């Protein structure tokens, strides 16, 4: 019996190739998308799952504000005191570890290799985290200064196949050699802690007195709790404890404990790689569901539309003794089989597309993860769900046909189910319009972010890291400027893309303990012209200001000059004009005078509003910003490189363009935008395929009517219109329904940006028009073919 069903089905599939193809392709594409999204979501949900003690670990966030200030700061940084204090004072804490990731330059022979993922870790690292030791002893590997563990890839990179244990590495700027004490497996991709090198924290040589202070907060602390519940109890004890700790220090400091497993998806503060906001997971899951719904609806539509053809078969089977139940299961079985084929195709396509998908999401995904149990479970669930939901309605309709009616031949037009089919088409259009509008607005916002006037220029600016305290800056500058393409050479610490260092400031009128927290950054006299900051009042720093900031080489007291932004001036109680020449303190240790006030500019991601910032005169800073003319860029870069080799032989020449760095800031957003593009395109494509199938069917069904009309003299155009009219009406209704949803959804998405576009009506109009056009083209292809066909043929075929 089952064999016969399967046979009938395959013959049916073959006979109606167009429909079968659309159905199987639709379901396959839908499934492939769903499976890939499922793989991605699973990877995100399983982030850090390999950490055996993960649910007892918490990350410590620091929150602080100064007395009298309403501004409070929070971040994923702590001082070296934090792990000590937590471990020694709270029974809830079993262990704590401090981590610092830096960039180091490794020297191998004549080569200088910049290593960005150089991690310093406290001795408890392996007691807390489950990274696999391949060689060496986890207990002692980080016990003494200048010990370093390599990941397997790093070991291979530096030592090939020879055993690296016991070998040494020279790092630029460190007189001590680092001794390799072991090899660990590469960090899993789904890990918030990422490193290529893992060195003992003691190598940093941080002095004992830092253990007394909370202020040198440049490190990340993780604590291991005795049990999961300890997090709440410990959190509750912290405010009182910290209040005592900060007694008489004119500031409040508190710590927030974040469950380790929640950092990646839920924290506002990145770990050692960018977080993924949970809302992206929800949105992608939603898109996957929508894609599946579209594929299912297409299936339902085509199956019920074709039911007239199947009706005869149903009638005969019933006359031959089949009961309703048997027929119901036959049709359910058919859709299950179809789904099964689609899952098969979908899995294969998924495996093939995985590398491309992995590039799209910017994360490695193993093919094995596609065939892992949960994903196979999802696939099985989808087969069941789709074959039931999509198969159920056609099966019910078909199995209920009365043989009396269908066998007489009266049952020619599938008028039945017309309303449902329309509803489903409207729904598909709604989804399409919704996705078109959403992706358009997302793309607009991303474009806006990338092209917004930030108050500074980021075009044609080369960013070149240099040692923080290098002496020969003036020489470098003048050598670089020999090339006509080099317009400015400025020295700063942070680039304007992301200025983050926290300082405090006050005016002489304010009491010493009433500090205002402020972002600040050391600059020289060329920064303003190089990045094109606009003065609102006063002047740029002078060369003399920079010399004074250095205390004339230590001969005099250091004298600072400041460039404030408008917000900082306002916060200190001045208009830009009033501020000029005023005395102020930056971190008590830097007394000085305001030289100029620049217009507010965005020195952080556009998710944040502009805050006060102080740019202060300084001879140090870890970055050169080189403004070049766009004319001969490759030559200019080559020139810079050759000069660099002469002047800084022990430093690699690793430049970046400032706008690339800026785009990195929005890596997640841009990636998300791309994902949305791809999946929205897929959804729209699927909706069109369904529509196309239905229009093929409508045209086929009305072929006789078309023939008669043509014989009677109807023009081709009027027939196309006749066949397309319905679909166009549906597209318009759908647009009207989709608009408010899209508007609401996009409004809440835009809310995450301090700087955002206003949604304009034309996006909606364009989306409706696009949908209409797509529908029209899809339908009219078929309508035109039908209209142009020879009526004699159509009439004879009846």
């Amino acid at each position: 019996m089952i064999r016969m069903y399967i046979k009938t089905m395959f013959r049916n599939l073959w006979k109606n190739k167009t429909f079968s193809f659309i159905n199987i392709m639709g379901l396959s594409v839908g499934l492939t998308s769903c499976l890939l999204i499922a793989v991605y979501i699973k990877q995100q949900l399983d982030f850090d799952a390999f950490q055996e003690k993960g649910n007892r670990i918490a990350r410590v966030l620091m929150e602080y504000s100064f007395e009298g200030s309403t501004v409070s700061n929070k971040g994923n940084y702590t001082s070296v005191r934090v792990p000590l204090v937590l471990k020694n004072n709270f029974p809830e804490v079993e262990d704590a570890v401090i981590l610092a990731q830096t960039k180091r330059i490794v020297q191998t022979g004549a080569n200088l290799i910049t290593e960005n993922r150089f991690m310093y870790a406290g001795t408890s690292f392996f007691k807390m985290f489950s990274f696999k030791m391949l060689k060496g002893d986890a207990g002692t590997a980080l016990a003494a200064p200048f010990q370093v563990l390599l990941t397997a890839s790093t070991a291979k990179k530096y030592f090939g196949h020879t055993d690296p244990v016991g070998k040494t590495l020279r790092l630029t700027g460190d007189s001590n050699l680092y001794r390799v004490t072991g090899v660990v497996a590469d960090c899993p991709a789904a890990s918030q802690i990422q490193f290529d090198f893992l060195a003992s924290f003691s190598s940093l040589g941080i002095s004992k007195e830092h253990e007394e202070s909370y202020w040198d907060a440049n490190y990340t602390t993780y604590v291991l709790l005795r049990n999961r519940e300890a997090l709440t109890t410990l959190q509750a004890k912290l405010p009182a404890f910290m209040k005592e700790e900060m007694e008489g220090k004119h500031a409040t400091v508190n710590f927030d404990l974040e469950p380790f497993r929640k950092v990646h998806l839920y924290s506002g503060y990145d770990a050692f790689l960018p977080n993924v906001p949970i809302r992206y997971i929800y949105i992608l899951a939603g898109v996957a569901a929508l894609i599946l719904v579209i594929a299912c609806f297409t299936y339902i539509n085509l199956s019920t539309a074709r039911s007239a053809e199947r009706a005869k078969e149903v009638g005969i089977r019933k006359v031959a003794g089949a009961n309703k139940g048997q027929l119901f299961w036959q049709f359910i079985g058919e859709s299950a089989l179809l789904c099964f084929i689609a899952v098969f195709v979908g899995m294969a396509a998924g495996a093939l597309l995985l590398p491309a998908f992995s590039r799209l999401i910017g994360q490695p995904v193993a093919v094995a993860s596609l065939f892992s149990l949960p994903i196979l479970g999802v696939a099985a669930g989808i087969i069941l769900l789709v074959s039931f939901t999509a198969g159920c309605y056609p099966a019910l309709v078909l199995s209920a046909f009365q043989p009396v009616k269908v066998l007489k031949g009266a049952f020619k037009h599938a008028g039945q189910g017309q309303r449902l089919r329309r509803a489903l088409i409207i729904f598909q259009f709604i989804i399409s319009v919704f996705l078109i509008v959403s992706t358009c607005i997302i793309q607009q916002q991303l474009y806006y972010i990338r092209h917004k006037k930030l108050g500074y220029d980021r075009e044609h600016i080369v960013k070149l890291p240099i040692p923080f305290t290098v002496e020969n800056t003036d020489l470098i500058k003048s050598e670089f400027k020999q090339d006509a393409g080099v317009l400015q050479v400025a020295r700063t610490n942070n680039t304007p893309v992301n200025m983050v260092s926290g300082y405090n400031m006050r005016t002489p009128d304010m009491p010493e303990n009433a500090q205002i927290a402020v972002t600040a950054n050391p600059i020289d006299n060329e920064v303003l012209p190089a990045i094109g900051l606009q003065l609102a009042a006063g002047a740029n720093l002078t060369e003399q200001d920079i010399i004074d900031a250095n205390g004339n080489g230590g001969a005099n007291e250091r004298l600072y000059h400041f460039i404030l932004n408008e917000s900082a001036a306002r916060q200190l109680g001045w208009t830009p004009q009033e501020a000029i020449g005023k005395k102020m303190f930056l971190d008590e240790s830097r007394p000085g005078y305001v030289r100029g006030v620049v217009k507010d500019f965005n020195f952080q991601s556009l998710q944040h509003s502009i805050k006060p910032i102080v740019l202060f005169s300084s001879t140090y800073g870890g970055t050169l910003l080189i403004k070049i003319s766009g004319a001969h860029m490759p030559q200019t870069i080559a020139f810079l490189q050759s000069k660099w080799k002469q002047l800084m032989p022990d430093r690699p020449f690793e430049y970046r363009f400032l706008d690339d760095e800026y785009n990195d800031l929005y890596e997640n957003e841009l990636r998300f935008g791309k994902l949305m593009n791809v999946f929205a395109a897929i959804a729209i494509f699927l909706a069109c395929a369904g529509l196309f199938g239905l229009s093929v069917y409508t045209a086929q069904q009305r072929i006789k009517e078309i023939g008669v009309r043509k014989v009677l003299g109807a023009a081709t155009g009027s027939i196309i219109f006749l066949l397309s009219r319905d679909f166009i009406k549906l597209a318009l209704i759908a647009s009207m329904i989709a608009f408010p949803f899209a508007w609401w959804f996009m409004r809440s998405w835009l809310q995450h940006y301090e700087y955002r576009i206003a949604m304009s009506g034309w996006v909606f109009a364009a989306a409706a028009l696009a949908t209409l056009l797509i529908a029209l083209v899809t339908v009219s292809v078929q309508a035109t073919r039908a209209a142009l066909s020879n009526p004699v043929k159509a009439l004879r075929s009846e």
Partner: protein
Amino acid sequence: MIKITNLEKIYRTEEVETVALNDLSFEVRDGEFVAVMGPSGCGKSTLLNILGLLDDPDAGSFLFNGVEVAKFNERKRADMRKKNIGFVFQSFNLIDELTVFENVELPLMYAGVKKSERKARVDEVLEKVQIMHRRNHFPQQLSGGQQQRVAVARAVVNKPKLILADEPTGNLDSSNGNEVMQMLTDLNEAGTTIVMVTHSEHDARYSHRIIRMLDGHTVTENILV
């Protein structure tokens, strides 16, 4: 075998009510071959559908082998139908996606007959209707006469006690039509009761008795034998 009394069937659409069968009564005995004749629209097909348990009457009684089936629900009707009745239609009504063999096999499958037995019985009837050599063809590859022979084979494969035929020769030329009529006569002689609707006086003469209908009820009954 069949006894109907005061049978009534009314089709209701939004605008009109059509009385298709009106106070119809007659009887068909075991082993009889009855032809039903009458002008188009007089209710012949409606009657056959009710006799075949494909449809239910609005009023009246229908005794099938002494069992009142007029009020049977769909499931019971299907069960009764599958065990007792075979159908032959004017438009042969074969499933296009199934081969000749599979089409004929269908009733046996729904009756739950074992595979080996199915094969034997299908081959037997295909032999009888002389279509054995075409057993693996699809319906479209056959002529009208051949298709109708397959349809007859399918109707009899389950050894029904009653065969209902609605204009079985309507789509056939006279020689093919005669062949089919001969097959029905043979079946009748082997003991199967047959009720056949026809427009052809020629075909009607193969039967024992002609029931003439007009506007939903019988006008005359001619006994031929």
